[in-house]
């Protein structure tokens, strides 16, 4: 009998191979028929057998009883005319009054039609009352503002001891100076950060790129968007999804550029974008930005997660300039050489080898990207190998590596929600609101999904975007704050029952920037070494707790703490007992140790 292979192609793969290069496009009908976002149209990988290990973490949404009841307004709930309304903002954990308890900053949006005067939605600052509740202090703080708010990052740009606030907008970005008395003053123009016209700012990160002790600022942008000239749903192939008319873009629209602002040390900034080499790689659909030292040379580098265009990795040249090395480093596109729709970014050393890795969430019908840092030379796409390709149905946004069960290994948590509510009306299975996803780190380089084990709050459906991680109730467990479109935020309290030990480290710079952004902390406990880096930005255009949380497993103490400060200087701090919050000041070691419970 003649083998079928010789008679006809057995598989779509072989058939498509015979068609030549166009086959790679035909393999993904969506790419062939066109849509606004990059997605490979892949199926999820088979799930490996569950490890059987218990995951003793559940989450409870305490937002309602905490007083977080104001919904975010971001265009119409079930109809997104423009992409501006579909993407949505970030959210921040932010100890604005430095009392050791995390407060919350919620970025808000608006509607194209506007609101009657006095009824415009505004950003919100919530003060932590330390009893599980929060109080809205927005007006008192001088932070009322209405507009298409996007990203948020925290950093003490003037080194006065209080973290300031920077917000990006579709519109004009805003810098708020923290006055130290519970109030803020808008200083954008004074600081030299006011831009002409309307630009689409998204991710932002404070970074001391020249190690002069002052926090500089990096901003990413998304689209050069003029709503008056932007097509609407169905206008062309970039404005349909699964045959349904949807908001257009980003494909088909004009890309934008990032900006770098140098802190002059006197409260003002200078735009050094061109001089620093930030324009060299050309435009992108830039979203979340984060500064971190990927090659362990002591200088912060810059990463931008980009939507439907290659991601950016700017390597710090140590001389005020950067070289974009995304492609060479293997972070620009996935292992198949294709760009993806990467909206957020998580930075963490998930395999404990001393090098910071990346996780990039994804659009639906595609996988995320788990990029393992190989000694700072390049990144390896280990998405499939690490068990991360088991979900392709969600559109994913805010994300972070976080040790949720305090076993000493960084787990992963991300939020989801699609951008096309219109599609659900035609395809009921394509939900606008979808669940959160939790992956447990198995400690062997791979992960397994444990969402079903984490309680109903994780499985609830929302159209979420930004999320921030931090211990809002100071019980040693990392909680999750989530921005939900057209709903109040979620505040997921981590009810970790593992009994594992932990340590939270707050760093305060003296010669370095006060916020210690860019500082690298390494601890040794139970024979294992773990690292963390103080990050401004990350997740999806959000800001997590600047304090660094470590899970210690059964180890009752940390044998050694080492800090590499943003100015490059190292410091051995010594040991510490577990289950407490320690404050380490540059040059002075541990200056405070607290237990809140």
């Amino acid at each position, binding site marked *: *009998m003649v*083998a*079928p*292979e010789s008679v006809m192609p*057995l*598989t779509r*793969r*072989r058939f498509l*191979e015979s068609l*030549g*290069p*166009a086959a*790679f*496009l035909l393999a993904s009908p969506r*790419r*062939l*028929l*066109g849509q606004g976002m990059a997605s490979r149209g892949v*199926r*999820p*990988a*088979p*799930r*490996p*057998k*569950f490890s059987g290990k218990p995951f003793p973490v559940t989450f409870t949404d305490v937002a309602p009883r905490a007083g977080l009841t104001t919904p975010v307004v971001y265009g119409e709930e079930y109809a997104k005319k423009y992409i501006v309304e579909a993407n949505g903002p970030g959210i921040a954990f932010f100890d604005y009054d430095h009392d050791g308890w995390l407060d919350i900053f919620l970025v808000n949006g608006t509607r194209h039609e506007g609101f009657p005067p006095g009824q415009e939605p505004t950003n919100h600052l919530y003060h932590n009352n330390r009893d599980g509740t929060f109080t809205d202090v927005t007006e008192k703080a001088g932070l009322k503002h209405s507009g298409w708010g996007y990203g948020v990052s925290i950093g003490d740009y003037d080194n006065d001891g209080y973290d300031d606030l920077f917000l990006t907008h579709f519109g004009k970005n805003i810098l708020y100076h923290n006055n130290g008395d519970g109030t803020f003053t808008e200083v954008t123009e004074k600081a030299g950060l006011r831009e002409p016209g309307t630009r689409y700012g998204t991710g932002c990160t404070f970074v001391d790129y020249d190690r002069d002790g002052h926090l500089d600022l990096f901003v990413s942008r998304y689209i*050069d968007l003029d709503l008056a000239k932007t097509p609407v749903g169905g206008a*062309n*192939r*970039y404005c349909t999804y699964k045959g349904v008319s949807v908001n257009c873009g980003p*494909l*088909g*629209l*004009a*890309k*934008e*550029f990032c900006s770098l602002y140098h802190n002059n040390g006197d409260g003002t900034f200078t735009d050094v*974008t*061109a001089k620093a080499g930030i*324009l060299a790689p*050309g*435009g992108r659909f830039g979203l979340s930005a984060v500064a971190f030292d990927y090659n362990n040379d002591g200088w912060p580098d810059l990463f931008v997660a980009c939507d439907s265009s290659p991601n950016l990795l700017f390597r710090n040249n140590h001389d005020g300039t950067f070289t974009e090395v995304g*492609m*060479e480093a*293997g972070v620009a*596109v996935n*292992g*198949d*050489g*294709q760009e993806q729709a990467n909206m957020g970014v998580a930075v963490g050393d998930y395999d404990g080898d001393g090098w910071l890795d990346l996780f990039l969430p994804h659009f639906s019908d595609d996988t995320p990207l788990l990029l393992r840092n190989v000694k700072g*030379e*390049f990144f*390896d796409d*280990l998405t*499939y*190998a*690490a068990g991360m*390709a088991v979900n392709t149905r969600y559109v994913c946004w805010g994300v972070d590596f976080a040790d949720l069960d305090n076993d000493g290994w960084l787990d992963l948590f991300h939020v989801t929600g699609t951008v096309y509510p219109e599609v659900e009306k035609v395809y009921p299975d394509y939900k606008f609101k979808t669940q959160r996803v939790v992956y447990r780190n198995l400690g062997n*380089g*791979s992960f397994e999904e444990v969402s079903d084990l984490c309680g109903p709050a994780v499985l609830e459906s929302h159209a979420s975007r930004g999320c921030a991680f931090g211990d809002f109730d100071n019980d040693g467990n990392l909680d999750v704050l989530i921005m939900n479109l057209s709903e109040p935020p979620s505040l997921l309290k981590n009810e970790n029952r593992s009994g594992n030990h932990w340590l939270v480290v707050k760093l305060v710079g003296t010669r370095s920037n006060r916020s210690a952004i860019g500082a690298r902390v390494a601890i040794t406990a139970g024979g294992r070494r773990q690292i963390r880096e103080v990050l401004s930005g990350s997740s999806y255009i959000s800001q997590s707790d600047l304090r660094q949380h470590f899970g210690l497993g059964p180890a009752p103490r940390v044998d050694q703490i080492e800090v590499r400060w943003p100015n490059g200087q190292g410091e051995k701090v010594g040991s510490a007992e577990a289950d407490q919050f320690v404050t380490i000041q540059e040059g002075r070691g541990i200056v405070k140790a607290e237990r809140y419970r």
Partner: protein
Amino acid sequence: MTSCGFAIILTVVKNGRMRVRFAVAICALLLAVTPARAQTPEVKRPSRQAIPSAQQAEVAQLAANAMAALRRGDSAGAIQGFEKLTKLAPGVAEFHANLGMAYYSAGRFRDAIPPCRQALKLKPSLTATRYFLGLSLAESGQCGEALPYLEKDYPRLPDPQLKRAMGMDALRCAMAMNQPDKAVDFLRWLSRDFPDDPDVLYLSATVYSELSTRASQRLLQTAPGSYQAHQFNAEVMEYQGKVGDAIEEYRKVLTLNPNAPGIHYRLGSLLLAGERGPTTLDEARREFEEELRIDPESAVAEYQLAEMARQARQWDEAVERFRHAAKLGGKFEDALIGLGKSLVSANRAAEAIEPLEAAVKLAPDNPVAHYQLSFAYRRLGREDEAKKELAAYRETHEKLLRAGQAIRAGIQGRMTAPQTVEPPE
């Protein structure tokens, strides 16, 4: 008239059928009465003896007029003139031949047949007339008679336009006569002679599809309970995305023929493509392994097992299986790329170079091959080569994107060019 040439206009008309109309400028096919008239290599000057001397002047004039009419595209005038000529001088083969051609150019294919036949009866050496007889028979649906002419004349026809038209007509006739062998022959010849012609390409797609449909219908009629019939059904369901139904049909195939090659492979692939449960992975693996038991040469089954091993980080198994798949599959660049990826992941980058270079050579337009090779070079510190491959990746990736845009534009009829603004000052 001094030269002979054909100007041919092709039009594709509705319903996907092709008609050929010729606007024929015939320079010299006949004419005996005027010495100035040139002769074609094929047409001899008609004998003066065929025309009574009393009529030669009239005939000459009529012929001149008829020729002029034909030259300026006045088919009706040409027909009228040559009809008179064939009555006046019925023994002149060329008059009949030209009448036939005039009818043909007017689209009166059925009317063209008798004069062409008569011309060939009087003078069998009129080759051009034989071409038009075959074409006229085909165009008027008399395929049984047309095919022998077309089959014989197609290979000899020097003029490419005429050849193409003849090939198309022959193909249609072969299909109409249900002679698939002949149809495939003509398709092969047309594809060989006109490889980039859109009409030929369209016909190829249509005809092969039609042949496939006929064969499948015959299969289902003659052997409805056969394993081949179930296999065919399964493939149709698979194409339609009915994964569950396809799996059921494939299992029926195996019930009838447990050793049918390719079936376990398809089952495994469908299991991976459908809804997943905790045992899906193991079930799929078993199918691929069973496929290899039946057909140890199945490169694709080996490939699937290799890919599963790679995704499970079982590098040694992945390497071994990809290597075997590449060896079995011959020009199987996916297997070579998988092998390269696995070797790199297993920290054996030096060994990855050979298969990845082979993949690039096999498929120079595949951006993935270039990307992976660039990575492997970088791992080994071969920076110049890494840069070269990265540049090749960028070029092939861009080319692929442009090809995709072209396909989309063709299908959807629109093309919008995304822009990038200039950076601000």
